[in-house]
């Protein structure tokens, strides 16, 4: 355990602070990821990439900064942007999930082709995993891709494809080997969203906004080399992506930001003039969450260190999504309670304008439930934790299967 900063780290910290001071006028608002980056966001992203404040450890030949892995450097950069309330760059499914997947299992050609444009924000990806009949049971996917004259020809339907309405590409899990058993029949394809035969229909959620889509495929053609790993290896690739999705969804920096926002809210005098922070029952609730967020953040530092050192964190990684999303729910719950009746008015502004605080918290509160469900529901997470993390046996196959399989 050594968290003291070297002179090189101190220099980096000063450098980042100076960068922020010099360029903060050019920064877009933090957040986003639910719409296509605009010119300002793209320019900002280019600036961050140039300085190595984004994609810092991705090799230069793939468009990154090529720095060696140093957990403290990453923490210093994240912390500086978070303190300044400045966008740390674009986060979306392409950057957080597809890029690490390609780095892990993509071909050299795929890395060179896709990583650069993706981290620059030029190519936006969406995820084609779930289907109406297979939500938790991803491997039961029925969308098919048959090979015809050098192309996969795709037919079927995906659901929960967030950002499909503005994405350029989809990473798609589909059945290419129907004669193989369930898990062995899948492949992982990279599909341009402008291909003929793709139809995207918005799917409204409980927040009242269309944060997701249904995507329909009718004879959509993709060249056969648009596959990651080989035919029938889609389940393996999908699980690599899911691994990164779990870490993304349990992100402790988001938890920390949320905790700080609630603390600030509770420090403000309320309608009756007193601060909630001065009431012991409220303070205790906040403190309890602070302790849990603290554990999550330290745990994350441990995971980053292990990752940098090539240690397989196993259990430590499997718990992150379940732990983080449940904690996020409890944080949002406290925020609603602290606002009371003032937190009820609700007018979401769509993609253009900014939501007010009450609306934002209500959306977060609902969206958190969506995140508990999405990316592998809590029950799926508990299966993974129990089986892959702790080595408990799988559910035995049922003697008399009910319905389809």
């Amino acid at each position, binding site marked *: 355990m050594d968290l003291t900063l070297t002179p090189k780290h101190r220099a980096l910290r000063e450098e980042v602070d100076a960068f922020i001071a010099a360029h903060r006028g050019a920064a877009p608002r933090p957040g986003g990821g639910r719409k296509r980056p605009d010119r300002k966001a793209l320019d900002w992203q280019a600036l961050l990439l140039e300085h190595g404040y984004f994609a810092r450890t991705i090799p230069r030949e793939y468009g990154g900064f090529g720095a060696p892995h140093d957990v403290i450097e990453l923490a210093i950069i994240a912390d500086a942007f978070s303190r300044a309330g400045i966008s740390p760059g674009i986060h979306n499914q392409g950057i957080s999930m597809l890029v690490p997947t390609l780095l892990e299992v993509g071909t050299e050609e795929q890395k060179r082709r896709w990583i650069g444009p993706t981290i620059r924000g030029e190519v936006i990806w969406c995820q084609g995993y779930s289907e109406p009949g297979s939500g938790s049971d991803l491997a039961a996917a029925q969308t098919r891709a048959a090979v015809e004259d050098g192309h996969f020809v795709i037919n079927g339907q995906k659901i929960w494809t967030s950002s499909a309405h503005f994405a350029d590409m989809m990473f798609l899990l589909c059945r290419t080997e129907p004669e193989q058993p369930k898990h062995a029949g899948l492949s992982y394809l990279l599909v341009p969203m402008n291909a003929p035969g793709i139809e995207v229909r918005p799917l409204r959620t409980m927040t009242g906004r269309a944060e997701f889509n249904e995507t329909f495929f009718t004879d959509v053609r993709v060249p056969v080399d648009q596959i990651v790993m080989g035919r029938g290896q889609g389940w393996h690739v999908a699980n690599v992506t899911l691994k990164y999705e779990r870490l993304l969804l349990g992100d402790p920096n988001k938890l920390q930001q949320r905790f700080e926002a609630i603390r600030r809210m509770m420090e403000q005098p309320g309608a009756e003039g007193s601060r909630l922070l001065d009431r012991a029952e409220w303070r205790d609730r906040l403190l309890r969450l602070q302790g849990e967020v603290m554990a999550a953040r330290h745990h994350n530092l441990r995971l980053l260190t292990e990752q940098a050192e090539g240690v397989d964190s196993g259990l430590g990684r499997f718990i992150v999504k379940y732990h983080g999303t449940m904690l996020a729910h409890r944080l949002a*719950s406290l925020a609603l309670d602290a606002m009371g009746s003032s937190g009820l008015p609700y*007018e979401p502004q769509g993609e253009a304008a900014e939501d007010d605080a009450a609306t934002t918290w209500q959306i977060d509160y609902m969206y958190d439930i969506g995140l508990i469900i*999405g990316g592998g529901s809590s029950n799926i997470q508990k299966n993974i934790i129990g089986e892959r993390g702790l080595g408990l046996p799988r559910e035995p196959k049922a003697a008399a299967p009910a319905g389809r399989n």
Partner: protein
Amino acid sequence: MRFGLTEDQLLFGRSLRGFLADRLPLDALRRLAEPGTGFDAELWRGLGELGLHGLLVPEEHGGAGLGMLDAALAAEALGYHAAPAPFAAALVMAVQAFRSAGDAEQQGQWLPRIAEGQARIGLGFAGLAGQTGRAALRLEGGRLSGALDGLMDGGDATHFLAYLPDGRAALIEAGAPGVTATLRRSVDRTRALVDLDLAGAAPVALLQSSNDPLAAARRVRDAGRVMLAADTLGAAQNMLDRAVAYANERVQFGRVIGSFQGVKYMCADMATMLEPCRAMVWYAAYAQDAVPEEAAMVASHAKAHLAEVGREVARLATEVHGGMGFTDLLGLHYQFKRITFDRQVLGGPERCRHDAAVAQGWIAA
């Protein structure tokens, strides 16, 4: 001599639920909820025909003269179906306000109008009920000025009953000079809040005849809390029922998901939390009429406990539905948001438990 509902009450609950099930299939609910006013004239009329307007109004004033337990059953049914209709404030708290603090003339003038469905009264407290938002009203020379946020049942209300810090309540006409009522659509589109700005508005009635105006105001608050608890009971029961139905039908991994202990135990946990709440709500409602020494304590406890249970059930039932639960498609979110609303008005759990401690004399107010 029994702890349970009468045949009449069972019948009343059934017929109200049947009416609402009939009137509020999902597409109708969607349409009615869209404007976010918490009011629909046709539904309001229909509820009136079932006797809901005058439920609590004494018979001499044209009502049914029923009790708080009957009202709780109505609230439960409205919550079950997420009905966009004024009730807790307009038909329960307002009646309670007139009965506990109105003089004979005021009662004679207003209670019949409530029972006829003509007066629909939005109602708001200041700090007394733990509501957040602006709450600074003053009455000078018979004129009311200031601001009061978050009045319940305020959408399309004909009148507003605004409580002063001292426990007196001023009844104001919605369109009168000096009255600015701003509709705030809430996250629960089936019920709206109204923010009032008053500039020398002239009340049409001032409820102040009680010996102890604050005590009278607290009784109104307690009645409201019981109704919100009952509303959550209904909404949560609806979500549980639908989760169980979905778990019995949805297939994943080659099995109906309800056969997995993971899903089954979520449903069992919901039922274990929720089932005892029913008797708690019944008793809390009954106590408002029949056990005055416990009324305040049990009302606050019921509100707090149902809010805690409601939140858990809302999350778990949505989880059981998987991604479908998070969409707009099934409309499960109407009940989800109903539970959110019930929790955040008239004081959250911490505040209600504090009030329960005060009511028991554990601490000073």
